[in-house]
Structures are given as structure tokens and as C-alpha cells.
């Protein structure tokens, strides 16, 4: 039965991917991309990688869909011609060749088995019980620290797209909805639930799947729903409080990492304090990830008068 399930899931995943790149029309491609994100999240569940599935569900099926649909609409309003989203034969063959070769070699060459044993032995010293969190926030904290800053760099790149005279404007398009309408009702209903779910994912991340990234993404998503209904005012890129929110997570992470120097080594989390240190980092990181992702989706500042 497992084989049947796997076959159907893989077929769907491939179909969604091919339809997203092989068909005509940006809108259809985008919808297939959302469907693809859902199937990939399910594949991660099937593989037991719940942490990744959570991230994929929130990013792949959630935020990216919103971002791409907005882009499609913007292109249309700008009068851009509907260019064919048709991957050329050569890149398609090249991609298939690379994927095929990688798969073939990976199946043929015996695997070295990863680092499960080492991670299991070190887990009691890491301060948390979820091995994924131990890897992300302790064993390989330097990677995660850099990754959290990568998000910020991406936001800077998005903001760089604004024109000089637009820097005074709030980010994103001017969002509004009918007062008391369905959209506004939804925007009042979902965020409280989403905040509970997001906070739960962060809090639970120490012992079970979840964590700052997953929780932060959910918080960003429900925040965006509120923003889409015009319930929250969008910030300007030079807003001090928002910049503090963007910087807080990486800053706390950096300071905690540097404080390790006093405790015996860079990015060192002594076992007795590790849990407190990691949770502190995660709380601030969640805030920053949520703020950064939400601002990334909203885009650069835009003038309030539409052309």
C-alpha cells in the first residue's frame, strides 16, 4: 500500500511541476505552483520530515502563492504581454539529465548513513529534545544565524527596487476591503487562531517538530491576511519600530553567540543554560522572521496614488 501511495503522490508532484513550467499562461502556472507546494509538503510528511513539511506548507503553499498571484496581477495591470511560460527544450533536457544522473549515482553509490548516531549522542547536551532544533540552533547554529540574515538581505534587495522619491511611502500597495464584508470578517477571525498556532509551533519546537521559522511563517501569513483586509496600517521602510523588529532576532542570536566566547567558545551553549539560551534566540528570531517575511511579500514601498 505504501508503494501505491508513493506512486500516486510522486505522479501528482511531477504533474504539478510539469504543468507549472510547461503550460501557457502565468496564472495557470502559478496555480499549479501552489498545488505543487501542497504535494511537496505531503511528500515531506510521508518521509517523516515534519519540520520541513511545516515550512513547505506555510511557504510553498501559502506565502509564495500570494506573492506570485500578486505579481501576475501587477503585470497585467501594467499591460505586460502575457508571455508564454514554456520552458525551452534544452533547459528541460539539461535539468532532466542532471536530475537523472544525480538519482542514478545516489542509488548506485552506497550511502554513508548520515550523522544520526553522532546527533543522538550529543542530543542530551544540546538543551532541547527535538534533534532538528538541536542541529539548527546548536550544532549548526552558525548556518541558522547566517540564514536568518539572508532573509534580511533579501528584504534589502527588494527595498532597493523602490525609486528614491518612493522611500517616504508605506510598503506594498494600498490595501483595502469593504467594511463588514466577508474578507474583513475573515481577517478578524483567522489571525487570533493563527497567532495561537504560530506561538505553539515555536514553543513546541524544542521537543517536537516546529520552531522559529515555521512559527514565524504562520505569524507572517496571518498578519498579511489582516493587512490584506486593510485592518493594519502598512509601515514605511524607515519605520524605527519595524526595523527593530527586523533586527531583533539576528541581533539577539549574534549577541548570544558572542557571549559564548566568555563561556568557553564562539557560539557555545553550555548544557545547563542551552535551553534558556536557545528559547530566547527562538522567541526573538520568530518575531524577526515574521516581520521580514511579511514585508518581503508586501514588496517595496509604493506611491499611494495608483497610475
Amino acid at each position, binding site marked *: *500500500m505504501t508503494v501505491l501511495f508513493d506512486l500516486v*503522490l510522486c505522479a501528482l508532484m511531477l504533474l504539478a511541476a510539469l504543468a507549472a513550467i510547461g503550460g501557457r499562461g502565468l496564472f495557470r502556472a502559478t496555480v499549479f505552483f501552489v498545488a505543487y507546494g*501542497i504535494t511537496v509538503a505531503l511528500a515531506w510528511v510521508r518521509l517523516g520530515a515534519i519540520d520541513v513539511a511545516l515550512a513547505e506548507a*506555510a511557504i510553498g503553499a501559502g506565502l509564495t502563492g500570494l506573492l506570485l498571484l500578486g505579481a501576475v496581477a501587477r503585470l497585467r495591470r501594467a499591460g505586460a504581454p502575457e508571455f508564454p511560460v514554456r520552458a525551452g527544450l534544452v533547459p528541460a533536457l539539461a535539468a532532466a539529465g542532471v536530475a537523472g544522473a544525480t538519482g542514478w549515482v545516489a542509488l548506485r553509490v552506497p550511502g554513508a548513513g548520515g550523522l544520526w548516531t553522532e546527533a543522538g549522542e550529543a542530543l542530551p547536551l544540546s538543551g532541547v529534545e527535538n534533534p532538528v532544533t538541536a542541529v539548527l540552533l546548536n550544532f549548526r547554529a552558525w548556518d541558522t544565524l547566517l540564514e536568518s540574515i539572508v532573509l534580511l538581505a533579501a528584504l534589502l534587495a527588494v527595498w532597493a527596487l523602490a525609486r528614491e522619491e518612493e522611500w517616504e511611502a508605506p510598503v506594498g500597495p494600498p490595501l483595502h476591503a469593504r467594511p463588514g464584508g466577508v*474578507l474583513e470578517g*475573515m481577517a478578524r477571525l483567522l489571525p487570533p*487562531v493563527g497567532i495561537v498556532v504560530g506561538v505553539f509551533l515555536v514553543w513546541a519546537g524544542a521537543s517536537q*517538530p516546529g520552531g522559529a521559522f515555521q512559527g514565524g511563517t504562520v505569524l507572517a501569513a496571518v498578519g498579511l*491576511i489582516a493587512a490584506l483586509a486593510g485592518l493594519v496600517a502598512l509601515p514605511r521602510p524607515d519605520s524605527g519600530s519595524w526595523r527593530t523588529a527586523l533586527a531583533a532576532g539576528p541581533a539577539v542570536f549574534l549577541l548570544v553567540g558572542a557571549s559564548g566566547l566568555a563561556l568557553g567558545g564562539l557560539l557555545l551553549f553550555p548544557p545547563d543554560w542551552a535551553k534558556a539560551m536557545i528559547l530566547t534566540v527562538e522567541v526573538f528570531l520568530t518575531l524577526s522572521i515574521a516581520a521580514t517575511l511579511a514585508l518581503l511579500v508586501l514588496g517595496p514601498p509604493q506611491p499611494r496614488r495608483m497610475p
Partner: protein
Amino acid sequence: MTGWLLFAAAAILLTLGGAFWRVWQGPGEADRMMAAQLVGTGGVGVAMLLAPVISWHALDVAIVLALLAAFAAVGFVKASSPDGAGDPEEAEPSEGEEGQ
């Protein structure tokens, strides 16, 4: 039990194949969007069915999927409003002859 749950999950996935066809075929963008919505609901169902088999934490994935199921659709209705930032309820139906 495991066998049945996996079978049921595979069967739901197969019905999603039908939704894929509707996304491909359209004809309207509303059709494509609603079919994607079905893929989302189906995905929630599959994640729930996998929970007893793989890990009960799969329910958290189902929650996130369900919570954000509406997300793409909200983006869609926003994007299809006149200024790309509004809400279809703010506008009057223009040609409602078949929609009443």
C-alpha cells in the same frame, strides 16, 4: 489499519488528479482557483490520514495547510479587483445576468 489509511490517502490523491485537470482546463480563472482550493482540502485530508501511520505531528501540518488554505484565494480575489488591492464586495456586479 495502516494499509487502509494509506489506501484512503492514495485514493484522495487520485481525486486530486481530477482537480488538476480542472486547473489545467479552466476555463475561467475562478475555476482554476477553486480547483486549487480542492487540492488544498485534499492535502489536509491526506495529512490527517498519514498522522496515525507516520507521525501524529502530521496534524500540525494539516493545521497549517488548513489555516493557509484560504491564502492563495484571498490573493486571487485581491488581485482581480480593479486596483489590485481591493475586495470584490466593494464593487457592484457589472454583468450579472447569469449570476443572479
